[in-house]
């Protein structure tokens, strides 16, 4: 009875089937909601009939229905149009405000976790200082100093948010660094850069991505809040926060001017949260 060392049993077909797992429902719902909003934002010129900045002082505070789908604001601007273009603005800024800290934080976290020593110490102490300040205090301060505008907002949020990503990625890197496949790569003569890029980052980045999903909701709220406080995107560029602020004075008569952008924020936030949850579930290792 000879026993070849050949593996006679091939990879079981069920294992291949297992990889096409059903996506979690929260992921699908999140994608659906967000998909609609993003699509509208992209197709803004096609789905709106008026420019968001065009004023029509003959037709201020019109009620929804008729020529203007959602009515007009106090300067006669089409509300629906401002809503859709506002989505463009706010989503774009939110995306940038998440991407920059994600990128910077991931790099710093990976370096700190991988090399340790004084590099780690410096990065983490700076992070400790930044995180000692409440988020809004620092962001408001920075925007104030830099002047309002989307550029300042992105810079301000980045300067504060990178810390979370750094900590998350550093923690995951510390774990990954002692895994045997990383040791094997080093024994195989791969340089540090390649080890970090090829072996560490792909395995640590999922946690950062999941965090980014919840972070983007908070950033969106921050942007809208800044807009509400008059420190946001500069008018006349449409922005949900600004719409809510200016509509506030008409709350008793034309409550829709404030409520509609508010609902838009809530809905977008919901979509992003569901997407984040769904992604966390989907990316979780079996």
């Amino acid at each position, binding site marked *: 009875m000879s*026993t070849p*060392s*050949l593996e006679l049993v091939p990879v079981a077909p069920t294992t*291949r089937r297992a990889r096409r797992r059903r996506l979690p429902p929260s992921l699908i719902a999140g994608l659906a909601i967000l998909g609609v909003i993003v699509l509208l934002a992209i197709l803004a010129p096609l789905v709106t009939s008026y420019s968001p900045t065009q004023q029509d002082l003959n037709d201020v505070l019109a009620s929804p229905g008729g020529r203007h789908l959602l009515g007009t604001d106090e300067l006669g601007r089409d509300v629906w149009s401002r809503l859709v273009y506002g989505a463009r603005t706010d989503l774009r800024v939110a995306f940038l405000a998440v991407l920059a800290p994600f990128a910077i934080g991931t790099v710093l976290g990976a370096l700190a976790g991988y090399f340790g020593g004084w590099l780690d110490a410096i990065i983490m102490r700076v992070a400790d200082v930044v995180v000692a300040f409440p988020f809004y205090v620092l962001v408001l301060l920075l925007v104030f100093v830099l002047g309002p505008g989307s550029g300042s907002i992105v810079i301000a949020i980045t300067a504060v948010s990178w810390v979370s990503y750094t900590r998350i990625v550093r923690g995951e890197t510390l774990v990954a660094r002692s895994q045997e496949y990383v040791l094997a*790569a*080093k024994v195989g*003569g791969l340089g540090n850069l*390649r080890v970090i890029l090829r072996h560490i980052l792909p395995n640590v980045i999922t946690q950062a991505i999941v965090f980014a999903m919840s972070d983007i909701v908070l950033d969106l709220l921050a942007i809208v809040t800044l807009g509400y406080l008059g420190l946001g995107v500069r008018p006349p560029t449409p922005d949900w926060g600004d719409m809510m602020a200016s509509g506030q004075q008409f709350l008793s008569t034309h409550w829709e001017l404030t409520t509609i952008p508010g609902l838009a924020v809530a809905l977008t936030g919901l979509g992003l949260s569901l997407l984040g949850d769904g992604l966390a579930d989907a990316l979780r290792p079996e």
Partner: protein
Amino acid sequence: MPALLELNDVTVTFRRRRGAPELRAVDHVSLAVARGEILGLVGESGSGKSTLARLVVGINDAAEGALRFDGAPLTASTRTSAVRRRIQMVFQDPFSSLNPRMTVRQHLAELLRVHHIVSGDQIGARCEELMSSVHLPQALLDARPRNMSGGQRQRVAIARALALEPDLLVADEPVSALDVSVQAGIISLFSELRRNLGLSILFIAHDLAVVRHLCDRVAVMYMGRIVESGATDEVFEDPRHPYTRGLLAAIPRLRSAPLTTDTAVRGEAPPISRLPSGCRFRTRCPLAADVCERDEPALAGIEQRADGSAHLAACHFAADPGVDRVSAVVPA
């Protein structure tokens, strides 16, 4: 011909915490691996065998002592990429030693590419050759670790080590995490690779039974020191150190009921921070005498065999014919 790998009186230290005293995981160890030889290094937890393995592949550094590889000194600075290629490692845990996000092909191709082992268009063919050499079906080249069994993953790890065409393979307990029905296949694979490629292997295990048929020579470690070494059949037939005898006696036998309820080795190894004076095994040794407390026995030769390989043991009573070694068993 000089040995391929030589360790001369090497010591590897570590500290549990900053400011804690320095402890020796590997304590003045000398050993050599000849070309084409399979040397077994056996020890239990805390023996320092894994630390020694990592020293050889360059993960740890020696605090004292010298390493030589192929006749030249092996230090952090002389361990160039070209030298690294020639000493490769297979790890114990087949799951964590492979990147879960990479396919088998990616694991192999990455090394082939970075070290320019073959030209770009040859990489595919070389990957297939490597798979054949470890007896894995080509279809698994595009599989990821989670879709493979432990035995298959371990073969991939071996293929990855072979990709760089090393002269010396350090295998750190490569079968300990595998089912017993799969272990034999991996062990015979190592034997085959030595036969076909002239590979030298430093094979680390916690169990003497595993090394019996694979290794030409075996060294037994206890608390950072080598306590016995020699040709495998000689160490198995005529173990001269009480610890080696205890290790052999402790292995459960399949075909016979236990002869005695007495344990093979009593007690446990003391923590490394409280090293016994003299011989470090004396706290558990049935032969312990006053001399054992005073003097640490050196690893000394007992007899020379015809082929020149030495049987060494670090025990004051190793060469003493008067000691009744066979029945020196300890009450439970």
